[in-house]
């Protein structure tokens, strides 16, 4: 309401805004529903587990994620809260249902997780990785492709492939990650090479030698590590085809393979595209649907591309023409923001773990505020709750 003083000045007049519904909400703490599940095996996760947290033991976390796979802040938070617990959400449940019903004699299915940055794709992939591990599948896991494209520790021109580039350090790290994830399984499967690999005039890996020898060679000799990775992926594909093992390929930030630029430059300062990396060829060969007895789960994220290519989170835009034609046909699975049930479950978890400390924030009004200001977006919620 506006009032005018005798001198002509305008004063703002105080009025009670009766339409504020927030003040009618009670200021007592609420925990809305049961937010945990005792079902610790992802193979058994179904629709009723939606919105519930299941905990992953320290040993499994170390085995699966010590080389990467969980987002940095998420991992730090799980360490602060004294245990890794992942929320079972619809995209992961959908994938698990598909994987449980897959006809492994048919060519591999390709699943693409997409959604806004921070909506939970990497964590869903982590869930699927745990599933694959429990289901006895060989895990071929790339934690975050942009690490190879944007922050390579040193690319060298490839000896074997002309005009292509090796990632010696990253390949050694990846082989280490592979052997940590699949160590016990590889010992059990005892896969053998089907070809001879000549590394130099005197060094070679003969036909029929165990795959672990190939991996060890790659880990010890950085110069040959990238070619070891290529050879390993080739062998796994053949092993899957001949029904000796079942392979689950999980790649986070797959669209980075088709990024328009990288941080690698040639001597003449021209930029090397990701499609000119040997590692790209290796993984693109594995993600083709010319083999069976496996599954390929991939995520595309806007943050995996440079800022010019972040307009839309959808797969066709993020993959580009080349990437789309490579992956087509695939099954797109959206990773949306939290539903109301998932949101309350997340807040319950934070309250139970003593992370959300402010007493008023734990109330119905506080939850309404958090839901509104975060837009039910998982990453935004995590950041809003962090200081309080």
């Amino acid at each position, binding site marked *: 309401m506006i*009032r005018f003083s005798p001198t002509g000045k305008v*004063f*703002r*007049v*105080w*009025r*009670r805004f009766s339409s*504020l519904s*927030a*003040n009618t909400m009670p200021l007592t703490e609420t925990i809305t529903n049961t937010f945990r599940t005792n079902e610790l095996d992802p193979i058994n996760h179904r629709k009723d587990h939606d919105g519930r947290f299941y905990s992953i033991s320290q040993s499994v976390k170390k085995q699966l994620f010590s080389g990467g796979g969980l987002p940095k802040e998420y991992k730090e938070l799980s360490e*602060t*809260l*004294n245990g890794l617990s992942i929320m079972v959400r619809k995209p992961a449940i959908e994938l698990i249902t598909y994987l449980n019903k897959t006809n492994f004699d048919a060519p591999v299915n390709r699943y693409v997780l997409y959604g806004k940055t921070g909506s939970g794709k990497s964590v869903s992939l982590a869930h699927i990785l745990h599933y694959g591990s429990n289901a006895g599948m060989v895990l071929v896991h790339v934690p975050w492709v942009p690490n190879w494209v944007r922050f390579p520790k040193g690319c060298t021109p490839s000896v074997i492939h002309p005009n292509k580039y090796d990632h010696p350090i990253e390949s050694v790290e990846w082989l280490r990650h592979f052997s940590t994830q699949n160590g016990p399984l590889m010992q059990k499967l005892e896969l053998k090479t089907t070809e001879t690999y000549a590394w130099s005039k005197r060094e070679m890996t003969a036909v029929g030698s165990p795959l672990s020898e190939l991996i060890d060679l790659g880990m010890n000799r950085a110069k040959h590590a990238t070619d070891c990775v290529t050879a390993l992926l080739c062998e796994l594909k053949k092993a899957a085809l001949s029904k000796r093992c079942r392979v689950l390929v999980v790649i986070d930030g797959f669209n980075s393979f088709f990024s328009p630029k990288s941080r690698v430059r040639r001597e003449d300062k021209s930029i090397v595209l990701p499609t000119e990396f040997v590692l790209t060829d290796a993984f693109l060969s594995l993600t083709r649907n010319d083999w069976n007895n496996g599954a390929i789960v991939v995520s595309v994220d806007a943050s995996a591309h440079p800022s010019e290519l972040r307009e839309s989170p959808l797969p066709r835009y993020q993959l580009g023409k080349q990437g789309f034609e490579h992956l087509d046909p695939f099954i797109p699975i959206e990773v949306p923001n939290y539903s109301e049930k998932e949101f309350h479950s997340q807040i319950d978890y934070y309250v139970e773990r*003593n*992370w959300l*400390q*402010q007493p*008023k*924030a734990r*109330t119905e*009004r*506080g939850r309404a*505020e958090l839901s509104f*200001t975060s837009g039910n977006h998982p990453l935004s919620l995590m950041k809003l709750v*962090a*200081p*309080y």
Partner: protein
Amino acid sequence: MSLFGVLRKLPSFNAIHCHINFLGRIARQQPYSMYQPFVKEPTYSIEKLDQLIESGEAKKREFVPVKAARSDHNVSVFHDELTSKFINMVMEKGHKEVATKLVETAYMKIKQMQLAKYYKATTDAERAEIELNPIVIFHKALENCKPVLQLTPIKRGGATYQVPIPITENRARFLAMKWMILESREKERTVHFPERLAYELLEAFNNTGKVVKRKQDLHKQCETNRAYAHYRWG
């Protein structure tokens, strides 16, 4: 035409509210304020508004002019006035977002450190003793850092003496915050402001640390200079 009217017409006095006291001297009421003296501070907390309505105070205030809302006044469940004040003091060159982020990161680090202790504790008694709420820790830490006396330079016979005088609540709060910020800015290159602030706040909460020591040094100085206390009155 009153002197007051004359003054209001002069453009340079637009921002100054003056009144003429009985000696005819101009006494400044609210220098530099854009508002007239009768304009009230806004009440923006929903609980306080509800209280005013219940008590009937609201009816009396219906036509009282109120100052404009400040950008950091909000009804969020996370709003804390003391934290707002602190963020303003941390802020440099008007970069409020940076200052907010620094203080919020410090709160997060406090939670992390306290939770580490909490989950390490084995008995319920130990756990009950650990305070986890960063705002509670912040309030208590500031309380522990507030001095009760301050020194002021007073000249007597050519020499300047540091005389202990009483301190107002606002001044004490200001000094506590200022010392806390200054202490958190001194650091190694690798330890950033939020981490340092978190450590300092936790130490002050336990009545230890450099800021509490500074307060205690000030109190000691006041004690040594108590002989000059009468200089306050000439």
